[in-house]
């Protein structure tokens, strides 16, 4: 993994910024090192940074470096970003074209505002793809494996939400938090975090709306459970557009595919939610200290800086994608003139008929194999120049081919252009 060392970050005087739980003192910088607190049996942090790469790196550092028997709460909010699971395919999960276009996302008819720059992040935990923005608070609990269950801390968050009056909140069978949408149909045990008075049987009423998704990372000594919590995202209506890849019908992927769910905002302020989660965490553990603010000054910790660079590297985000195959034509091709393979329809290469299927096997971020059942060996030979081509360097290839006039270059050019359109890379 590429991890070029960052420039020396000016070491700040470690100043413990103790906060009243949930509160934030403005004008103060976060601490420059976690050395003072990371040995404590119970720790609580809140990030002042909205950089998703930094927050995930701090979280990973806490997972790796804290004592096995300690328990940690870490709360953070990221700027708009899409976070994919450890073993997911970004081209399958995300509409990278609109990420690449940045601010040029088409405003929807209802006048939905444009989101602007949205980062793509591959996290280290499992699970599916989620959208984060300033109206979403991430909660993360790191604990000994002995204390771990997949529901324990989702239940903690549900108790916090209920104390804030969100009585429709419960943990569902996927370990997510949902808001029941049914009519009040009776009483339920207020202590039961898996049922509300609004819970209806599957299919018997309106579908619950998801407000929080869970993912886990389990190491030898530690268990990490982190989840999102949609409070007041201004981007709810745009999210499906971001999480729908136009390349999906053309891809067959190994790894983990997301399960999409209808989502909703809870309608609480970030501060109220944070405070309540901290209070609930304090109820579960004795001796929880006031939350400590952290921010980008932690980049002076070499391990955090290294993790930060790793998460930002294209090699991590793209080349860690499990093996997949890209087909020139979707398997059920109902619309042969779908815009995504316009490039093939207008191919200047005489032998490359628009209906001739080609498939590209991609592994470790590079083309492993090019195949077609309908091409001659000679034709395949021409295409084999694409073997070992790194997806990250497709743009470079198309630029190089642009000026070339030989037959091979002219043959490969439209395919390379098409590959680039199907498998975009968004630079950090």
């Amino acid at each position, binding site marked *: 993994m590429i991890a070029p060392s960052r420039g020396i970050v000016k070491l700040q005087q470690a100043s413990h910024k103790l906060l009243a739980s949930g509160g934030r003192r403005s004008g103060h910088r976060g601490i420059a090192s976690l050395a003072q607190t990371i040995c404590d049996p119970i720790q609580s942090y809140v990030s002042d940074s909205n950089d998703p790469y930094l927050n995930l790196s701090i979280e990973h550092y806490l997972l790796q470096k804290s004592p096995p028997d300690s328990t940690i709460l870490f709360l953070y909010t990221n700027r708009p970003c899409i976070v994919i699971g450890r073993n997911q395919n970004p081209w399958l999960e995300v509409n990278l074209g609109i990420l690449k276009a940045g601010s040029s996302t088409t405003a929807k008819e209802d006048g939905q505002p444009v989101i602007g720059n949205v980062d793509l992040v591959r996290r280290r935990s499992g699970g599916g793809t989620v959208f984060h923005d300033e109206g979403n608070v991430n909660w993360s609990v790191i604990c000994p494996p002995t204390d771990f269950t997949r529901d324990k801390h989702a239940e903690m968050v549900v108790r916090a939400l209920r104390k804030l009056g969100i009585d429709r909140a419960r943990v569902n069978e996927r370990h997510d938090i949902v808001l029941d949408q049914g009519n009040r149909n009776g009483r339920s045990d207020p202590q039961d975090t898996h*049922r509300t008075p609004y819970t209806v049987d599957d299919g018997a009423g309106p579908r619950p709306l998801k407000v929080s998704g869970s993912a886990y990372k389990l190491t030898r000594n530690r268990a990490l459970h982190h989840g999102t919590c949609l409070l007041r995202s201004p981007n709810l209506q745009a999210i499906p557009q971001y999480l729908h890849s136009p390349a999906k019908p053309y891809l067959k992927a190994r790894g983990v595919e997301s399960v999409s769910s209808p989502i909703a905002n809870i309608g609480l302020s970030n501060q109220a939610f944070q405070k309540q989660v901290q209070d609930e965490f304090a109820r579960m553990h004795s001796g929880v200290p006031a939350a400590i603010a952290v921010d980008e000054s932690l980049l002076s910790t070499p391990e955090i800086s290294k993790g930060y660079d790793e998460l930002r590297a294209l090699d991590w985000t793209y080349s860690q994608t499990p093996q997949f195959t890209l087909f020139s034509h979707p398997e059920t091709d109902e619309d042969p003139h779908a815009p995504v393979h316009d490039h093939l329809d207008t191919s200047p290469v005489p032998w490359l008929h628009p209906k001739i299927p080609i498939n590209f096997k991609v592994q470790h971020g590079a083309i492993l194999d090019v195949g077609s059942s309908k091409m001659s060996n000679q034709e395949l030979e021409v295409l084999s120049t694409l073997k070992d081509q790194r997806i990250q360097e497709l743009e470079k290839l198309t630029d190089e081919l642009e000026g070339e006039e030989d037959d091979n270059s002219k043959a490969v050019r439209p395919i390379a252009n098409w590959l680039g359109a199907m498998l975009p890379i968004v630079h950090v």
Partner: protein
Amino acid sequence: MASRLPIARAARQFASSAARRPSAPVEFSCRRWQAAPALQSRLFSVSAAVREKQYTEDHEWIEKSADGKTYTLGISEYAAHALGDVVYIELPQIDLEVSESDAIGAVESVKSASDINTPVSGTVTEVNKVLEEKPAQINKDPEGEGWIAKIAVTEEPTGKLMTEEEYKAFTED
């Protein structure tokens, strides 16, 4: 409901027994407990001549090849059951040099990426490619067709290893 599923229960048990293992030689930054003497358990010394599966407290198994040069590594039936449906297995690279207790790969199930740790030091010589395409194989036959990797050993394992019987008692504990 989720918390009442057998898998959730099993995962809890799995996790709890995993935690009873003595501190691993992993880098931690806290002297306070780092200083605590690691319980180097050598109670179960291994005879090189015996070819049978041995189990770790992390719920992995190893088996020595006939020539004694290679160990095959996998996860136990117990672990496979506790993990739930495995949807992806991140295998180590061939020729990767590994040290005892290193995470050499990971298994994804139920939104969890769980590290696979090696109880032996050496070089990865082979990985079970079948698992790349059929991760569910590890649920079906974790101690046979679902093996994960083969490691050419540089030194004999020093961590605690159990016989099948001892491991059975350990998981029932």
